[in-house]
């Protein structure tokens, strides 16, 4: 069962050349989905489209069996942490939590108290005096102190110190263990690698990679070749996903399972296919451009 399905989605903005285009994306219910991409890639736009904060030019989005504009049916099922974590500057933390308890559907006071212990914020402090990290902590309380089936988190750890980042990731995992679906965007490649089941990478509004993290890791490998080694291999031998040429060495991201790797090594003894991590994939795809869907 899918929590989110997107088909032929297109969103452009006035006074901007940026266009988000996603042909096909489906997210399994109960999974943790990571969204990666450089600044301006379209991560926030995609999450805002899911939340009906912006409307698509065309395309189909289904979220928990409903269209995003069916907010009445969805508002109790989705919890959202936006990229911009601004809240009412004139309110104190206590007042904000009191207000949130009145308007957030499915608010759980016990859970809020529990979260206040994890993210200890002074109740009397005005929101205008909170640092970005503290506002993120307050938003974390607002986001997780409620019952929801889907949690959409836009850079949830940005501005947090390493301890709080860890607490946030723990919360995300806890929600996942409870069977909730999590979508989160981040620039922290490490936390994505540690947490997600599936991921997508966006670049300039296009999805350049999408899939199960373990599958991607097993299907992709990295070759580090010198100029002479590179010229010794016929181009058709490799299923190249992305390349990056440095001064003396070329980094080549290739597609192929264990069999392909073994065959390559048998044919070209000097080759040493290496396992990839998200950082390798991200840097190669983003620097190189990658194939666009």
């Amino acid at each position: 069962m899918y929590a989110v399905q997107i088909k032929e989605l297109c969103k452009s903005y006035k006074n901007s050349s940026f266009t988000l285009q996603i042909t096909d994306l489906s997210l399994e219910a109960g999974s943790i989905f990571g969204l990666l991409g450089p600044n301006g890639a379209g991560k926030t736009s995609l999450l805002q489209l899911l939340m009906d904060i912006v409307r698509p030019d065309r395309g189909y989005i289904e979220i928990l069996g409903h269209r995003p504009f069916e907010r009445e049916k969805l508002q109790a099922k989705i919890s959202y942490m936006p990229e911009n974590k601004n809240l009412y500057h004139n309110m104190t933390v206590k007042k904000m939590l009191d207000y949130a308890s009145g308007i957030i559907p499915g608010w759980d006071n016990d859970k809020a108290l529990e979260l206040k212990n994890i993210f200890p914020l002074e109740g009397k402090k005005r929101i205008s005096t909170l640092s970005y990290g503290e506002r993120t902590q307050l938003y974390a309380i607002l986001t997780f102190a409620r019952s929801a089936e889907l949690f959409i988190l836009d850079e949830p750890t940005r501005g947090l110190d390493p301890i709080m980042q860890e607490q946030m990731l723990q919360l995300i995992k806890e929600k996942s263990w409870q069977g909730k679906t999590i979508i989160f965007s981040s620039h922290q490649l490490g936390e994505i690698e540690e947490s997600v089941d599936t991921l997508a990478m966006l670049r300039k509004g296009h999805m350049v990679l999408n899939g199960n993290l373990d599958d991607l890791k097993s299907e992709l490998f990295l070759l580090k070749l010198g100029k002479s080694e590179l010229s010794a291999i016929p181009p058709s031998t490799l299923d190249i996903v992305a390349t990056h040429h440095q001064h003396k060495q070329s980094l080549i991201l290739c597609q192929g399972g264990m069999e392909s790797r073994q065959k390559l090594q048998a044919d070209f003894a000097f080759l040493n296919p290496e396992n990839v991590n998200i950082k390798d994939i991200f840097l190669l795809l983003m620097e190189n451009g990658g194939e666009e869907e």
Partner: protein
Amino acid sequence: MSLLIKELWDLRWRGTILLFLTLLTGYFVLSNYEWFKTVADIAQITQGLKQAPFLNQLLDMETLNQQLLELFNNIDFYVWSQWFGKNLYQLILLAIIILTFPLFARETEQNTNYFLLSNRTRKQIFLSKILASFFGIFLIIAAGSILPVVIALFHDFNFSLEQALMYGLQLSISSLFLYSVVVFFSITFNDVIKPVIASVIVFVALGLMGKISGMLYLNIYRYMTGVDIFFTSSIQTTAMIVILILALFILMGSWHIFKNKDF
């Protein structure tokens, strides 16, 4: 705290100050009627009116003098000219702008609308905002309209409750029209300065259009001052229906924009 209560909570200082200002101004204007009569120099006014050839053709000076004295001794004329027709409607214009311009624009400017939009439907947000702010404006209108009746209880004059209610209704409908204009700008613009500037321009333009011969009916301030109620003792029903329809039309347009807006 519900969405509606929060909106009212947001308006608490601005609303209280405006209400206090209205009551204070009203108190000073209305309770100083006797003093006003003593300072008004009828002879000097008559002398000034002698310079108007049009008046001289219509009335002889003696009749004019007599009628002026009658008017100055008439509390109704004083209330309509000095309170309803002057200070109160100007305070209401101020209240409409001050209580309405940041309604939607501030949420957009400060990016707090993400919190609202992710937890409530656009319809709930729109309704709670416009109900709360118009409630604030209506409260000031009601207080200002009833004030002459209340102050009359403590002074040596009477003022008709019926007239006060008629004026309150006409002022409420006229204000709803101007209010809908400010709501429209608050939704359309993404910062809090532009709605204020645009509203002031429209408010001034409406006044100027009403001065053009044959377009007097466009002068919304004529209805806000209640001058017709003073002369005819009745509400301008047709004009009020037209204004109400226009106000609702603008509010529906604002809703349409808000419903489809990208934030």
